[in-house]
């Protein structure tokens, strides 16, 4: 059915151009198409050519699929009026585009000499490894030279980062780190009418309006390409106008009608966004031809009459008619133009099908988590000029202070990062004025200014969107997620967006960030699950995301240094987990022993991925592997183990939860013979225990014995009942005893 419809639409255009009567008037190339308009004949013909090329690419995509040589058929057919936006927006205006952007890309790249958009698109369709955008990883619209970071989003999840980029444009200037982009740059973000209903779209548009309401320049152009349907679900007529047409702090434009009318409306929308530095919502009327994708049988949910009525509104047919009737082109001219474009695309397609594909796993994964250990270490030990540091810290250097808590040392480490790295931004809910719910960022906004340390609105999606946008522009954002449980609200911003960017752009675009996440359980002050979430499985599940957790104050500082360097050097996304219950903990064994405090570590000390920390290095009876609160409980249990049964435990602090330090674990496991993994997170895949046990079982030293202690697979209840689902010291003690006593090696080796 679909291929037939393709042919029918193609033939209808041909038939029109065969039979069309030329206009009696013939306009010169630089004449406007309407009396007061600005669209000239020449520009209209350029647009038409771009639209026809885009259409020819869509037709070829289906043909390649039919021959099993192409792998992507979501098309731009019917959306080609978006070429107008491609022509009216500068190549230095960042564009975050959805998947029906073929014509927009053709007209955008027309502005870029030397670009080869037709060939590049074809390379993407056949997943060729020399596809310049993704290296054969996905068919995406992207271009490093013209500021189009590729988006894989089909669900408007790119809207928050577009808003973040618009926000960060002026923020970068304000902190004295202007980007190479002109000062009146705007950010374009396109999506469909159905996607406009996604939570992320709503969050992004809301954030833009909020930002504008606060007086912050937020020049983002939301380009909503309204084709009236999302796969098979029709959008109520007028819904986009209803939803966005009358919102305050959002300029609304409705582009429809003939090409010259669309041109003027888009021009006005772009101009408004550029001059007002404010969010603009531009609805562009489109149709969707040939179903959602090549596999979608449209007759399953639309009558043939409806389909034909939509096809009659084919924008290319409409524009051909318009150009002929206005005297902008002779039908024969357009016939040649169309045939030339089709021939070009088909000829180029014959070349791309023999281009090489990705053939090995290592190449595919190369952009996912790059890590040059030496380069990261060099950057991690970066320290500010001593005088600047003295000045910024008011003479109170953290290394000269006595031993302090995790919260205090992290506060100092963040201050050092803000001094040594002028491109850092620190933000989140309550991060600024209040200094964090737990006081972690206390005083930083005052010391470093509200431009660099600031409060955001209460929306994790927006927080991560701002981080992505800032990262795109060369800043080093440190967003805070106030509680681990809240990350789930916005997880796709990490999983589908931030962490996928380097992969799908073959490393050409990155959005570096260190996401601070306060979390894990055992809090005494603030109970209940949502402030004590004990599941990190969702974070460990994200390809390319590095995850570390600082337990002791000095170790947390060293981890933060590595995390920032990984973000800076490789553009990595690093999640920095902070155990809330240990923020203000002072003691290890007894009240008042100050055993959990530590000094500020020297600047050249860093904990890199793969590094671990060991307590009781000389012990060999059992290895206890843990992190965060579990580490403290393990150290307590280890002391009792020795006191009560004379067993000496070596305790390994994992520090990095992704990638896990398997080499170090295996080495210490081999020396101790018995391994107890103490995982304070949920038993079933919420934590790291399964991965460690599986790795030891499959690849670890032979003959070792392994046991685990984990939290219950439950939400965390309020009050003392929490202890019943969380790992307790006595459980660790009991498990260790069992392991030792039942061991084939006997009580002691």
């Amino acid at each position, binding site marked *: 059915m679909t291929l037939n419809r393709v042919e029918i639409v193609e033939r209808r255009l041909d038939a029109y151009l065969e039979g069309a009567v030329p206009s009696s008037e013939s306009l010169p*190339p630089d004449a406007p198409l309407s009396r007061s308009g600005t669209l000239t004949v*020449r*520009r209209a*013909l*350029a647009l*038409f*050519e771009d639209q026809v090329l885009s259409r020819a690419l869509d037709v070829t995509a289906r043909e390649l699929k039919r021959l099993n040589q192409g792998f992507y058929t979501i098309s731009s057919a019917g959306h080609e009026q978006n070429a107008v936006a491609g022509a009216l927006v500068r190549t230095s205006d960042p564009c975050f585009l959805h998947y029906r952007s073929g014509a927009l890309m053709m007209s955008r790249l*027309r502005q870029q*000499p*030397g*670009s*080869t*958009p*037709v*060939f*590049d698109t074809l390379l993407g369709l056949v997943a060729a490894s*020399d596809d310049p955008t993704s290296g054969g990883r996905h068919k995406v619209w992207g271009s490093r030279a013209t500021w189009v970071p590729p988006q894989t989003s089909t669900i408007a999840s790119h809207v928050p980062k577009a808003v973040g980029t618009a926000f960060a444009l002026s923020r970068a200037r304000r902190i004295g780190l202007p980007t190479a982009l002109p000062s009146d740059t705007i950010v374009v973000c396109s999506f469909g009418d159905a996607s406009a209903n996604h939570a992320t779209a709503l969050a992004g548009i809301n954030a833009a309006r909020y930002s504008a309401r606060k007086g912050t320049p937020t020049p983002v152009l939301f380009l909503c390409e309204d084709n009236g349907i999302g796969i098979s679900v029709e959008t109520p007529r007028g819904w986009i106008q209803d939803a966005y047409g009358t919102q305050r702090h959002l300029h609304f434009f409705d582009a429809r009608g003939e090409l010259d009318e669309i041109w003027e409306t888009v021009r006005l929308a772009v101009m408004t966004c550029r001059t007002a530095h404010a969010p603009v919502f531009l609805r562009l009327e489109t149709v969707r031809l040939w179903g959602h994708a090549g596999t979608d049988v449209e007759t399953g949910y639309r009558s043939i009459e409806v389909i034909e009525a939509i096809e009659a509104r084919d924008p290319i047919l409409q524009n051909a008619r318009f150009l002929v009737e206005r005297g902008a*082109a002779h039908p024969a*001219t357009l016939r040649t*133009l169309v045939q*030339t474009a089709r*021939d*070009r695309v088909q*000829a*180029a397609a*014959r*070349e791309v099908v*023999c*281009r*090489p594909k990705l053939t090995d796993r290592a190449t595919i994964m190369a952009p996912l988590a790059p890590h040059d250990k030496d380069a990261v270490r060099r950057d991690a030990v970066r320290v500010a000029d001593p005088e600047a540091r003295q000045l910024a810290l008011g003479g109170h250097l953290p290394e000269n202070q006595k031993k302090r808590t995790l919260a205090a040392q992290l506060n100092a480490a963040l201050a050092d990062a803000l001094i040594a790295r002028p491109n850092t931004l620190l933000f989140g809910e309550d991060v600024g004025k209040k200094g964090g719910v737990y006081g972690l960022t206390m005083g930083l906004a005052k010391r470093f200014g509200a431009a660099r340390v600031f409060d955001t609105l209460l929306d994790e999606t927006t927080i991560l969107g701002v981080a992505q946008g800032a990262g795109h522009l060369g800043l080093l954002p440190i967003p805070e997620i106030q509680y681990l449980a809240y990350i789930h609200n916005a997880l796709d911003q990490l999983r589908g967006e931030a962490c996928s960017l380097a992969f799908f752009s073959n490393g050409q675009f990155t959005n570096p960030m260190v996401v601070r996440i306060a979390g894990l359980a055992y809090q005494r002050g603030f109970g209940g699950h949502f402030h004590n979430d004990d599941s990190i499985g969702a974070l460990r599940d994200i390809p390319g995301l590095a995850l570390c957790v600082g337990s002791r104050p000095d170790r947390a500082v060293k981890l933060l240094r590595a995390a920032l360097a990984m973000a800076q050097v490789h553009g990595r996304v690093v999640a920095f987990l902070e155990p809330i219950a240990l923020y203000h903990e002072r003691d290890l064994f007894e009240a008042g022993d100050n055993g959990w405090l530590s000094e500020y570590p020297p600047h050249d000390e860093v904990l890199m991925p793969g590094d671990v920390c060991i307590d009781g290095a000389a012990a060999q009876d059992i290895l206890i592997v843990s992190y965060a609160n579990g580490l403290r409980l393990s150290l307590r249990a280890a002391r009792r183990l020795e006191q009560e049964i004379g067993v000496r435990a070596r305790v390994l602090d994992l520090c990095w939860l992704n990638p896990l330090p398997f080499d170090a674990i295996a080495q210490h496991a081999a020396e101790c013979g018995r391994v107890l993994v103490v995982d304070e997170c949920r038993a079933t895949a919420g934590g790291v225990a399964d991965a460690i046990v599986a790795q030891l079982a499959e690849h670890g030293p032979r003959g070792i014995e392994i046991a685990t202690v984990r939290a219950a697979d439950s939400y965390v209840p309020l009050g003392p009942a929490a202890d019943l689902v969380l790992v307790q010291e006595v459980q660790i003690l009991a498990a260790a005893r069992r392991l030792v006593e039942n061991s084939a090696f006997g009580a002691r080796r």
Partner: protein
Amino acid sequence: MNRIAIVCPGRGSYTEKSLNSLPVDHPWVRRADEIRADLDLPAIAELDRAERFRAADHLRPANAAALIYLVSMLDATVAAAGHRVVAVAGNSMGWYTALAVAGALSFEDGFRLVQEMALIQERHGDGGQVLYPLVDEDWRADPVRIAAVEAALASSQGDALHSIHLGGYAVLAGTPKGVAHLLKELPQQRLGGTVYPFRLLRHGPYHTPWLAAVTDEARERLAGLEFQRPLATLIDGRGRQHSPWSGDVDTLRDYTFGPQVTEPYDLSASLRVLLREYAPDRILLPGPGNTLGGVLGQVLIQEGWSGIRDKAAFQAAQAAPEALVVSLRR
């Protein structure tokens, strides 16, 4: 009907073998000589029919450019008959020929452009061009040679610049001091029996800001040229496409008298666009000599076009019946 592309040669293409290439009674040759007579230049017909090659005459810019233009135009016109020309490009002065081949200038305006530019360039810009290879004997990129070029440019203190990105070669331009620097600093390298670097005879420091004065004079002297929208897509030395439907004559004129003269000419980018965006069945190389055959081969190798990844593969493809690159002369 074949979809063909035409790539017009630059001024380095005229050699001893190029003599006797012209039908001297062709109206174009006659018209060219009328124009040249007004400029006190020797007749093309005589130069073409000279008994022997005289470097001082035949390589003089004002003579070589005219000869090359005429041979290229005649070749292109004949070769294009019966085919569909989808794209036209040129190397350096070949851009002027390309304008005429694509119909953006009449034959006569194209000739005036070539002739006047050669004369103006004879008057401006001390210095010259140096040729150096960037590929090995297999015509694959040689990082050592590439690095040597960048190092020599960097140490020239602004006296040498990129002039033409010519496939597997760098054409560098310099002031007299810059040329001396390049010849001294670039390590001697051999490619296909030739030793590099060498200076191109009677060539100025083209495609650099040192020729800025040329642009003003050219604009003035050639104000009467009538640029038209091309009949086939023109691809310029930045890789920009000028389409028959939306091409802009002002853009063509501004480019021809501006950046084309003062900015590096990126023939590699131009050919890359020609291949990728037009994927022609044949690429015809008109004009005397065969300087662009190898360059095209090197660009095809850079692109991995049709699986061509080295010189041997290119030669094998060229030996096949329907070769992609067709040199119309030797």
